[in-house]
């Protein structure tokens, strides 16, 4: 064991040295960039760099489509997309940074506390996008990172399995799930993710203890839900008809499958938890810094967010922009009327505890 320790200590010393060498090799003076609103200059510099590397958490296929729209808008700047989900992306980015392997130009992580941590440690460049003031406060982490969409909590159901009367009941109140008729008919997940935690965060809110609270969550678990490992596996099982509905899923996930013709719809009881969970920032060590900034400008612009709407089905985020999504024309579709906004401090403090409580309850059933 001593040999191993010596060896790994040596290895880490080598790693630290390598990182130090890499840092020393970096330009001593801070690089200057054009004004964020000077798109022509930014584009000229971005073309010289030729490409950018975009780390994403969201599904690959719609993000590739969004990247293609950018490439069409700015010929000469290619986007290389690499999908690494949430905390793994954080770890990978940090490991690369510590080792001096600067690969990512833009990081996009579905975990707000982790992005806050990156911003605090100055791993994200400060870059105030031109649309900064039009974005809602909850979609901004200072000037270090921006969200392109918000996530919600929805009850997604198979339209062939749930009657209109049952749909109305489910839409009326989150607590309608305790009705005996729903016992064993719905699915939940024990996956740990921001979207998976969103509704639980509201149910465990001390301010709403009288309405929900741990007792409600216990009763929910006693309804014998079918459990799957992943929130998206839950969706597939609802579409297949193996279970009748997902108790809390999310609109963006359901939208892509609905557009393919899957027999699913969704309702969102009041109050509906809504949160910006996926933030994107420009790496302070971006190898293609101008291209990264051009992309960050575009993706938070009217055109970029419209691409998100079209390709990913996300609701508009910019103040004054129109909701262009085709789903709004459906008679069954009801927009969110009353929003529950998470308390992000409590989120960071209670996430592990609340998820542990939920997982243990489900496993005990």
């Amino acid at each position, binding site marked *: 064991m001593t040999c191993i320790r010596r060896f*790994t200590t040596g290895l880490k010393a080598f790693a630290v040295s390598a990182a130090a060498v890499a840092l020393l090799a970096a330009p001593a003076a801070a690089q200057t960039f054009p004004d964020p609103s000077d798109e022509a200059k930014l584009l000229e510099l971005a073309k010289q760099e030729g490409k950018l590397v975009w780390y994403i958490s969201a*599904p690959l296929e719609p993000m590739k489509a969004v990247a293609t729209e950018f490439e069409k808008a700015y010929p000469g700047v290619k986007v290389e997309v690499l999908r690494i989900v949430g905390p793994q992306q954080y770890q990978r980015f940090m490991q690369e940074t510590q080792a001096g392997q600067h*690969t990512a130009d833009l990081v996009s992580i579905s975990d707000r506390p982790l992005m806050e941590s990156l911003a605090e440690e100055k791993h994200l460049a400060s870059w105030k996008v031109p649309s900064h003031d039009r974005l809602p406060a909850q979609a901004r982490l200072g000037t270090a990172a921006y969200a392109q969409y918000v996530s919600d909590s929805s009850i997604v159901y198979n339209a062939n399995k749930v009657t209109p009367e049952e749909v109305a009941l489910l839409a009326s109140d989150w607590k309608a799930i305790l009705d005996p008729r729903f016992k064993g008919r719905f699915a939940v997940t024990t996956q740990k993710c921001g979207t998976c935690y969103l509704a639980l965060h509201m149910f465990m809110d001390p301010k709403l203890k009288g309405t929900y609270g741990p007792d409600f969550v216990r009763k929910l678990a006693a309804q014998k839900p079918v*459990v799957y*490992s992943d929130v*998206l596996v839950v969706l597939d099982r609802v579409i*297949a008809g193996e279970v009748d509905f997902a108790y809390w899923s999310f609109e963006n996930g359901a939208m892509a499958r609905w557009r393919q013709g899957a027999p699913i719809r969704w309702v969102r009881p009041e109050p509906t938890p809504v949160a910006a969970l996926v933030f994107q920032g420009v790496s302070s060590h971006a190898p293609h810094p101008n291209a990264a900034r051009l992309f960050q400008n575009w993706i938070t612009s009217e055109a970029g967010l419209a691409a998100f709407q079209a390709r990913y089905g996300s609701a508009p985020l910019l103040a004054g922009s129109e909701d262009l999504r085709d789903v709004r024309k459906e008679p069954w579709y009801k927009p969110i009327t009353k929003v529950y906004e998470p308390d992000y401090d409590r989120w960071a403090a209670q996430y592990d505890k609340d998820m542990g409580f939920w997982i243990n309850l489900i496993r005990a059933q």
Partner: protein
Amino acid sequence: MTVSSDIGLAPSARPGPVPGFLWRWTGERILWLFLAGAVFIVAIVPLLYTVDAAFYRETRVGLSAQRSLQAVLNVYTGSEYLGYLALAMLLAVLVTMLSVAIGVTMALLVGRTDLPAKRVIDLLIITPLFLSPFTGLIAWIMLGSEKTGFINGAISAVLNTVGLDPGPLMNIWSFGGVAWIMVIFFCPFAYLFTVGNLRAMDSSLEEAARMNGATAVQALVRVTLPLALPAIVASGLLIFILAAEMYTIPGIIGSNAGFTTLPWKIYEDSTVFPVHRAHAAASGTLLLWITIFGIWLQRRITRRAERFVTITGKGFRGNPLPLGGWKWIAILWIAVYVLSAVVLPFGALLLSSVMKYTAPALTADLFTLNHYREIFALPSMRQALWNTSWLAVASAVICVLAGFLISFMEVRRPSLATKSLAFMGVLPVAVPGLVYGIGLLWIYIQTPLYGTPWVLLLAYVAKFLPYGVIVSRSAILQIHPELAEGARMSGATGLQSVQKVVMPLLKPTLIAILFFVMLMSIKELSASVLLYSQRSQVLSVLTWHYMDAGNYQFAAAVGVIQSLMMMGLVLVTRAIFRVQIEKALVK
């Protein structure tokens, strides 16, 4: 003749130690040093990092600089982790026993009996190898789900016509369902690594047994099977290791069926925030000890090498045992296997790849070819195809050559040095790919190799070299040294005796390893998912991303392309090496 070129046997050699192997500056020693250095750097260094990672205090995103025994204590003494381990072992043992039983039975039928249409049967039995278990899971979810599975639907439809309603007969979302899927995908491994040996056996011993009153079945069970023990044990060990480290199928199904196995816990500890990397590493070491025990057991069972020598310098006959009236039962047995392992899963996967979404009933408006159009339009798909292809070929060639040389030195030149090298070469198999991937990532992130496909090649070589070592060892054990000795006495050099005598005899096994490693590389996911970059996409990672994003139809389409590619690579290999794999396997 100097010893420096003597890779084969000296004229007077017999299996046994050659004194002074490491004390002379010889060609063998140079080769040993080269292999030992390469294996240490490629396979052992990441492993050491993984073991070391178990002894740190954890932070929410990794490891702190502070040493701690907490993770090791939790994993080794806590009921939680030991419970996960017990379930993983139960599953691995069950899967190994069933896979070996079914696979070896089919190998016996093909290798030692007068079963008809053997060439077609060979291909059909190994066809499940062309399907990744991960994408096979998609197929079996379609086939075996309780309420919406095609199998239950078909059975209900038939029984309803006669007024019976037995309810769902199959539920893939269960412990038994996990075992079923894994058995189906691991049976070909047992078949692949035993059928060549069985076919090559001299039939005189069986005939002697028959002449003494034994039935055909008794001759197979009492004479043939014991002689094939090294190959059976080696295949069993491989299956056990693969089953023990598999996290995808037990994880996805287990969450629904209410059980958790240790590999899935390692996956969660490694990837789900807040990560428990020291716990993942400590859990990896638990699997490491168990696999080391398995390797020791294999060595112990096959320690008296001469007991298993079945290919000698004497001529032999390979007369097949007549099955008589059992022939149709044997064909039925194989037909049921082919239906379960080939026809149904491949059909379901193909179907899923052209469906817009998962549906229990098929209607015309459900089908589309858009998934294929969209996938081929992606630049990453073309890159993934190229990377997957050359990585499979390169890793297979390296593993075959290095595995053969390491095993040959160990068996024919047994010494502390050669045994240590063989042990080093086998050790990485004991570590779950995911945990190993973390070690590899940490090591190679310091080098210019990081982010290139070369790092994946190193990972694949490290991960699959053990198969080259284990399987070639069992084959070398079955070749009597007198063959190389005879060549030497006729004037051949040591190298020539290996080239002209030993290698041709081992050709079926070496081709089998080549074939096996290519397929394993194409399907490899757990290390790839941590090491890939935007410049080194591979098909398995692409499939994972689609599945992870809930798009099973795209994942199925990539799975179909992956399967076709595996079949294509086998054909290309056949053209390059001028060997028909299916024939090579049964010679």
